[in-house]
């Protein structure tokens, strides 16, 4: 168990999201209240269609809730403009998606330094930091490789390094092992665990695999758009 500070870095209050298929309302989240403390490693689990990814999209400000509130570091994200949301994501959040989603025309190093470039950091700083992060994820020898020259696990490690590059307050991972074999999946989740412990990063990970979910400090379970445990 990692140490937490006791203040919620992430909090949702009565969060609701509905989609419309024609005129038919399909609720995906039906009033979700969760809290994640700073420094926690939390798994969000639930069966397919339970609203895990929808919740993650709301938390990551990639989508807008129908009602309710998302607070990250105490800030109500619904009050932010689109530009402020971009700035917020750049400064406070790190994303890891299930498809590795690297830029195929960039090397591992270039993929990792991209968020720092967007933050306006200097070349010397982002190159040093990029190298450091790739070493943390075990890819110190693959820095100038293109994604097509890396295995699935290695690509996901690059994504993790990229997600850490902007020194986020909250790391959001959406099924980060969905396209990996079981051994590599365990390695990736263990890497999350190490990052959580050593770097003190708060991690909010969506997964449907029980074994992987249990490696987190805490599990939040969703079913039919509601927190059930």
């Amino acid at each position: 168990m990692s140490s937490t500070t006791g203040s919620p870095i992430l909090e949702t209050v009565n969060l609701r999201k509905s989609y419309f298929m024609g005129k038919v309302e399909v609720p995906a989240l039906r009033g979700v209240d969760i809290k994640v403390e700073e420094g926690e490693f939390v798994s969000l689990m639930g069966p397919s269609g339970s609203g895990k990814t929808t919740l993650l999209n709301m938390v990551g400000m990639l989508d807008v809730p129908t009602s309710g509130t998302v607070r990250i570091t105490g800030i109500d994200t619904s009050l932010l403009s689109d530009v402020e949301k971009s700035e917020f994501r750049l400064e406070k959040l790190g994303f890891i998606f299930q498809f590795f989603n690297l830029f195929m025309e960039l090397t591992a190093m270039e993929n990792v330094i991209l968020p720092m470039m967007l933050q306006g950091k200097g070349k010397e700083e982002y190159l040093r930091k990029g190298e450091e992060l790739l070493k943390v994820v075990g890819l110190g020898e693959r820095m100038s490789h293109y994604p097509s020259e890396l295995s699935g696990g290695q690509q996901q490690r690059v994504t993790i390094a990229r997600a850490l590059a902007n020194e986020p307050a909250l790391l959001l991972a959406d099924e980060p092992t969905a396209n990996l074999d079981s051994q590599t999946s365990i390695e990736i989740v263990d890497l999350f665990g190490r990052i959580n412990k050593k770097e003190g990063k708060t991690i909010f990970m969506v997964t449907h695999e029980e074994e992987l979910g249990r490696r987190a400090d805490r599990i939040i379970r969703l079913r039919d758009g509601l927190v059930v445990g």
Partner: protein
Amino acid sequence: MNRRELRAGLFLASRDIMRSKKIVGLVFLSLAFSYVNVVFLASMMQGMTQTLVGVAIGAEGHMTILPKEDQRFIEGVGNLRKKLDAIPGIEGATSRIVAGATVEYKGKSLGRAVMGVSPRREGRVSVLPSSRMVDGEFLTQNDREEVVIPLFLADELEGKVGDKEYIRAGKTIKVTYGNGVIKEYRVKGIVDPRSFAWSNYVIATEDEVEEVLGVSDVASTVNIRIRDPSDLRRSKLELTMQNARGDIEIWEERFQSIKDFTTAMILLGNLVSVVGLIVAAVIIAIIIYINSEGKKRQIGILKAIGAKNDVVLVMFFAEAIIFAIVGIALGLALTLIGANYLITHPIRLPFGDLKPYLTPRLILISCIAFILMAMVAGSYPAWRAARQNIIKAIWGE
């Protein structure tokens, strides 16, 4: 948009272009040929225009003084020439006297005219005395009983094909003037002025024709070459105010058909250039559109990690501009190679050499037009890519 967004957008654009070498190479090549299409044909049209204008001015000078409407000749031409010579802006002035005549050689008869020129003065205005002599020599100031025949007329007078009665220096032609005077002239030379403007005239000296017509100190035309022909209408006005004793026409008025033809060619060249620009614009728009569609997921991720729309906009917009700049560079290189070859090996036409007329102005305008075109063509697909919904983009929808 701030500097860091610009830097990130340019970084992504440059990497995208460098990574897809084969496809990008083909795009560069297509755009290079589009640029050649835009600039090269325009330069050839300009070259054709220059040649035709050169023919017109080379034949008649920049301006021609004609007799007043009710008069056959310009009177007091000696004084007029002196007066013209004293005007600083005039490089040269010469008088010509034309008499209608029938020209006969070896039984072949053509209704033409004899043009009396001053060999000494003519060279300061027209290309006639300096033109290539196919045979013999050009006239000198005091020549009598001798004529020079332009090549086109010589061809017409040579009779039937295969009769071997070629007209050449030393042969004699018979000229029957309109006033009934019949003269036999020794052909002093065959000149090739490469212009149809002379094809109706046997060339004699001014004194010879005046003697035949029984006139003196008169001219059918006085032809003038101006030092600075940039504003001929102003020069014409100045000359009119000097009381030039005749009606003054500048070359564009005298050769209206050439002026109309060159205007039409420049318009045609511009039209082809515009079509070339449109083709290039369509190429760029399609490439940027396809590229942005293929990168939907990456655009979604880029925006998810905090890139603003401007980064995506800069990325694709910069690609369009890079395509245009490299297209221009390659196209310009091809154009210069082609133009250089055609300048040293011009296409020879009966009235002159056809070669491209590639000016810095034409190059500058074509470059600016090409880049503006790329900006317009790239802006919509770039804007469209930048405005994609993050979730839909991440899922490639």
